[in-house]
């Protein structure tokens, strides 16, 4: 099988970035082959040039970048020498692509079916009626429920997974020889992700397609890759069959990446039963109502249904569940960023839900939050020093004291004090998240709520931040509510884990117990969906 001639052969590809970019070449001397019936996974940290390779292969590079050398051989031609018409002919018909963001990759104003039919229209195939019929059968093929209805729906009326299925249907419409999938599941929750991965795998096998699959998630790679290519700073650092790369990584970078993948085995933890309660959440209810109109009924979402839990001093409680299950809503309710319909949140002895205005403001320092996106959570126009010191200053601390403390905090999270005078965009993602942590600590809180605090980070950076959190928590005796959709992360950091589904907590148990003996069906489903469960990161 390995001897089959490559469908696509990228040779020595070099793509130049415009002046002023962070490095001169997005991709520098990359060579790789895609063979029929094989999935090549391209992995690497964010910005390593994965998407650039994919786009070059589809001839969809942005105007500002250009290929300076190399070739892409496909069916005996060099794609880089193709003219517009040539490209148009190949795209869709012979080369197809699935994009990362299923929402934005579909035209919001066109019905799904029409967008599928366009595939045929673009190449002048079939009559309009046949196209519609074909769209319907495609929808069925990718397992979209109720296909008759869905082809008439607009993208926003579909769930993320459904949209991604529609994208896949489109990509497969003309049975292309090569499929390029650029992080097709990153935006999806684990259960949906697992379904989509299975779908791609099956379709690819059935049609003997060559697939280039881009991801940063080693779990995913472990699940589907035949061949793995590791990119770093635009260069291939390692390449080989999946098993080889996983089990005998050659390059240090690959090793580091693999080491950083958290394991599903929860480490042993000291019991905390004798500690006092830091947070008590009693019977929280929250329902969002969006008025419908257009002959539609109002949309009601129960984001929290009788949510009860408490966190002991020094404990980390994990809150997991698929996307949309209500995790963030609970976090915001606990933080009093939104108002609960019912229920009480108690911090120590204080009933937070009964406070408002100034009284609330003065109590806020006791519970702080670390936000998901390290960039989005820092005001791009304020210096780090201010970002950290603003809270204490608002609470009445003398500015000089507050800045001194900010300096100490930066040291504590491992940044040098020069950072005080810089702006957020001058830091890396991991550094930014550290700033976020420093800000949360500045108010000397008793409790920290971390809502997907590490999801936006690369595995390697993620590992660093998690270590830091553990360390700080132990040193400062904090309690933590740790929200994540990543069960691997949860396994590593939580004392107990609560599983949420449709606004309700369905299971709450010490971590080891939960992983060892999930009781609720949903928990089991969730655990099963974690990609790469079969393989073990060797360093774990």
């Amino acid at each position, binding site marked *: 099988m390995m001897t089959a001639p490559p469908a696509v052969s990228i040779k020595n590809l070099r793509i130049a970035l415009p002046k002023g970019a962070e490095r001169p070449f997005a991709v520098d001397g990359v060579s790789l082959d895609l063979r029929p019936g094989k999935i090549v996974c391209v992995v690497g940290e964010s910005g390593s040039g994965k998407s650039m390779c994919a786009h070059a292969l*589809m001839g*969809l590079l942005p105007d500002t970048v250009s290929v300076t050398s190399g070739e892409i051989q496909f069916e005996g031609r060099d794609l880089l020498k193709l003219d*517009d018409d040539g*490209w*148009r*002919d*190949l*795209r*869709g*018909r012979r080369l*197809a*692509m699935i*994009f990362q*963001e299923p929402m*934005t*990759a*579909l*035209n*919001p*104003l*066109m019905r799904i079916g029409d967008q599928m039919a*366009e*595939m045929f*229209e*673009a*190449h002048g195939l079939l009559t309009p009626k046949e196209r519609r019929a074909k769209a319907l059968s495609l929808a069925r093929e990718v397992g979209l429920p109720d296909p008759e209805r869905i082809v008439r729906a*607009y993208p*926003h*009326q579909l769930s993320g997974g459904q949209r991604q299925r529609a*994208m896949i249907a*489109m990509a497969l419409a003309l049975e292309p020889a090569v499929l390029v999938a650029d992080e097709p599941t990153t935006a999806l929750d684990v259960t949906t992700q697992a379904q989509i991965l299975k779908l791609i795998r099956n379709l690819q096998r059935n049609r003997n397609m060559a697939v280039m699959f881009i991801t940063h998630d080693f779990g995913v790679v472990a699940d589907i890759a035949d061949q793995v290519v590791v990119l770093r700073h635009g260069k291939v650092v390692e390449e080989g069959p999946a098993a080889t790369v996983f089990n005998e990584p050659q390059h240090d970078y690959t090793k580091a990446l693999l080491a950083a993948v958290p394991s599903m085995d929860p480490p042993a933890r000291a019991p905390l039963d004798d500690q006092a309660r830091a947070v008590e959440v009693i019977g929280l209810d929250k329902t969002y109502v*969006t*008025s*419908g*109109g*257009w*002959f*539609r009924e109002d949309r009601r979402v129960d984001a929290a249904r009788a949510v009860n839990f408490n966190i002991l001093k020094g404990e980390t409680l994990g809150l997991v569940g698929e996307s949309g299950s209500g995790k963030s809503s609970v976090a915001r309710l606990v933080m009093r960023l939104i108002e609960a319909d019912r229920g009480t949140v108690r911090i120590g002895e204080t009933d937070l839900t009964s406070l408002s205005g100034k009284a609330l403001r003065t109590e806020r320092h006791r519970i702080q939050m670390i936000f998901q996106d390290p960039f989005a959570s820092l005001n791009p126009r304020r210096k780090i020093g201010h970002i950290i010191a603003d809270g204490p200053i608002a609470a009445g601390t003398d500015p000089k004291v507050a800045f001194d403390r900010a300096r100490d905090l930066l040291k504590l999270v491992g940044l040098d004090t020069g950072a005080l005078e810089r702006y957020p965009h001058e830091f890396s993602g991991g550094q930014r998240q550290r700033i976020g942590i420093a800000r949360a600590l500045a108010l000397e809180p008793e409790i920290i709520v971390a809502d997907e605090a590490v999801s936006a980070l690369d595995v390697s950076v993620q590992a660093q931040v998690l270590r830091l959190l553990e360390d700080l928590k132990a040193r400062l005796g904090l309690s933590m509510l740790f929200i994540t959709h990543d069960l691997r992360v949860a396994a590593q950091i939580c004392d107990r884990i609560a599983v949420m589904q449709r606004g309700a907590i369905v299971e709450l148990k010490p971590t080891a117990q939960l992983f060892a003996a999930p009781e609720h069906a949903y928990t089991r489903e969730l655990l099963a969906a974690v990609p790469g469960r079969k393989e073990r990161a060797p360093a774990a």
Partner: protein
Amino acid sequence: MLSFVAQRVLKGVIVLLAIVVLNFFLIRLAPGDPAVVMAGEAGASDPVFVKQLREKFGLDKPLPEQLLIYVKGVASFDLGFSFRQQAPVAKLIGERLPATLLLTLTAFAISLMLGILFGTFAARFAGTFLDTAITIFALIFYAMPIFWVALMGILLFSVTMDWLPSFGYETVGANLTGLAHAVDVAKHLIMPAMTLGLFFMATYTRMTRASMLEVKRLDFVKTARAKGLSDAVIQRRHVLRNALLPVVTLAGVHSGTLIGGAVITETVFAWPGIGRLMYDALLQRDYNLLLGVFVICSAMVLIFNLITDLVYRLVDPRIEFAS
């Protein structure tokens, strides 16, 4: 949908009521007494006579009472009586409204059509000479005072070339009917509508251009390209349609400015619309008439807004009829 329209109408009525009440006082703040103006025109002034006039038109009553009478009238679709023109306000406005609607709607259509056309071109050839040329061309009409452009148009097309009539709504005394009449009105309409429309065209050109460039960058355009669709289809079906949405909303919001801009256009081209009526009413302190014009104009703007909103919502399936 129905409840949405009902809600919007209700809110519109509230805004209109506010307009009535506030303007009622606002207009009366202006120095100048309508009775004195009228007496003055007779070339004499006589206290007894002025008093008679005030009584006749209820101007001697206390303001709150006058307001009450007015609001009651408006509630029963009676906009009051014009002291000055001695006719019901509704009738006076009714006579002028069709002309204004014709002018503003045509100008609206022209500005949108040309604006979108040029904007599309500019976006398509962004950064090239054509783009710059279009931008400058559009800006010239935007940067020139309407009254000046109008006069230039008259000099060029009426005086020098003698192609188009320079004033009015139709050829007076020609007594044309049917198609000939329509053609005649159209000929009269071209210049005013163009002058007014070209000014707004600039905004839409720029808006369309920016919006197109923005949409062009969105992922689904890449999807479309990945399908192998031709450029023309991508531009039309994927880029333009999405790019138009903000332009249409802006156009709705702009309608107030458009109707306001008609005051000058109507003046220069002697177009018998309500813009001019309003200005004259102001000069004469014809309170009821002025208020009436304001109410009607605002109602028009509200309706315009509602229509563009509805269109927007129909075209864009994402929007729910949230209030």
